[in-house]
């Protein structure tokens, strides 16, 4: 019924239990009820004493009524939120702690806790964070001492040439930086006059000269050091004889440039064993954890020795942090994986194939991605000590030109 509603409401506004003393005290409550005061939990304690509960806000009116009636009224119990609040505020230690914790929250939320840099490679990230440190922006600084994001943005872009753009915004206690890296195109230095000479022996296959005077033709055989493209252009070669005296002045020095592709050859000797052994993990593994202090390791988890034939051990150390300080204790995670040794036997033909593949791969690494292996040939094949010895011959197409600076003083 209605009383639950009354009680719930009065928790917020507060309610008091009063004890009324006088003749026929219950009549007093009836008068109150007639005047519009809500009364509940009325109990008769004795003939002259009656107890009842009213709302805190009705106390004024109750006093007014009692001026006419002359009952003795005592407040026996005060309950509800207003009284609770008053009681709490009276406790100084509690209030002090409350204020302190509020201040702490304010204090902590005014500090940069994290700087998040995204969108740029590690080295630039490092640079940015170093620069930010110079500006006084690092985790642990006051937020209100910082410049506006716009200013930081401008300064960063000015100070780090690799940055094309950086977006700075602050979200709560975290600083977000989003950078875009500038791809720096190096301005080509004007090349000094130079010749192109052969670095390897070979037969010229293609000539593409963009600057300079070609000195060789397609299908010419060249040795290392032979002049391929000359950086000296004699403008009037035809009139050489007639104007001999002016020859010197007409010479022009340029930086010779061009692609000179030649067929070169290589002889490679490879040894391929007929039995190959390799290790592989079976997938069975166990983990162990240690706490490491100095050189002392204390096992934390995983004590049993796995019954593996051979074991591959992998360890990972992670330092422990207290807030931001590294502690001397490290957690070591050791993964013990079971491994097996596999032995494969090869036939001679297989061994030759493997040898060729291997030699090709090595040659490619040596010559770079531009080189093209045209053909390979087994020159000689012999078997000894369980190994196949191969003498291989490769035909390769590659750029053989290297620069040789020209000294103008000569």
């Amino acid at each position, binding site marked *: 019924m209605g009383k639950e509603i009354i009680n719930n409401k009065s928790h917020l506004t507060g309610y008091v239990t009063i004890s009324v003393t006088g003749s026929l005290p219950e009549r007093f*409550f*009836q008068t109150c009820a007639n005047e519009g005061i809500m009364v*509940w939990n*009325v109990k*008769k304690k004795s003939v002259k004493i009656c107890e009842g509960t009213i709302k805190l806000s009705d106390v004024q009116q109750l006093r007014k009524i009692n001026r006419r009636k002359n009952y003795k009224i005592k407040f026996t119990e005060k309950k509800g939120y207003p009284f609770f609040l008053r009681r709490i505020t009276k406790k100084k230690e509690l209030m002090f702690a409350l204020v302190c914790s509020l201040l702490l929250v304010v204090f902590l939320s005014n500090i940069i806790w994290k700087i998040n840099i995204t969108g740029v490679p590690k080295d630039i990230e490092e640079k940015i964070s170093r620069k930010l440190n110079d500006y006084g922006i690092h985790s642990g600084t006051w937020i209100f001492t910082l410049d506006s994001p716009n200013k930081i943005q401008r300064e960063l872009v000015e100070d780090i040439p690799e940055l094309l753009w950086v977006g700075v915004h602050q979200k709560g206690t975290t600083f977000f930086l989003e950078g875009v890296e500038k791809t720096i195109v190096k301005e080509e230095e004007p090349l000094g006059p130079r010749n192109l000479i052969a670095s390897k022996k070979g037969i010229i296959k293609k000539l593409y000269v963009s600057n300079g005077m070609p000195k060789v033709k397609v299908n010419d055989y060249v040795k290392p050091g032979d002049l391929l493209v000359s950086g000296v252009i004699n403008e009037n070669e035809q009139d050489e004889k007639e104007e001999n005296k002016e020859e010197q002045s007409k010479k022009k020095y340029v930086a010779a440039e061009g692609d000179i592709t030649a067929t070169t050859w290589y002889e490679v000797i490879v040894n391929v064993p007929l039995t190959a052994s390799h290790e592989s993990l079976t997938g069975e593994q166990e983990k162990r954890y240690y706490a490491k202090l100095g050189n002392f390791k204390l096992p934390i988890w995983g004590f049993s020795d796995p019954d593996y034939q051979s074991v591959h051990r992998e360890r990972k150390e992670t330092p422990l942090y207290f807030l931001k300080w590294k502690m001397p204790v490290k957690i070591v995670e050791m993964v013990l994986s079971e491994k097996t040794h596999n032995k494969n036997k090869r036939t001679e033909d297989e061994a030759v194939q493997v040898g060729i593949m291997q030699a090709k791969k090595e040659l490619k690494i040596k010559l770079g991605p531009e080189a093209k292996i045209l053909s390979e040939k087994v020159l000689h094949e012999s078997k000894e000590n369980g190994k196949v010895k191969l003498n291989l011959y490769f035909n390769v197409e590659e750029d053989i030109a290297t620069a040789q600076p020209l000294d103008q003083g000569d």
Partner: protein
Amino acid sequence: MKKLQQGLRPWLTKYLAFPSDIMLELPRITVVGQIHVYIENHKGLATYSESELKLKMNKGYVKITGSSFVLKMMLPEEILLEGEIRDITFVTD
């Protein structure tokens, strides 16, 4: 005039089926088992103690007896009584 009104009211309730408690200004008493009595439309509290509640009505009193009475709620013309109720008596004077 008052006499006429007094005579008219029972007649209205009887023939027009008007609610009798409103028309005749009689208390409506709702009893929940032995534990609750809810009295509306009474004319004031006469006496109240742990074992007895006496309420005024238009003619006479209604008397409720029992034990460990508590008035759970008091509004101008309503009372909710809680306790162990033994009997409800109408006393006309």
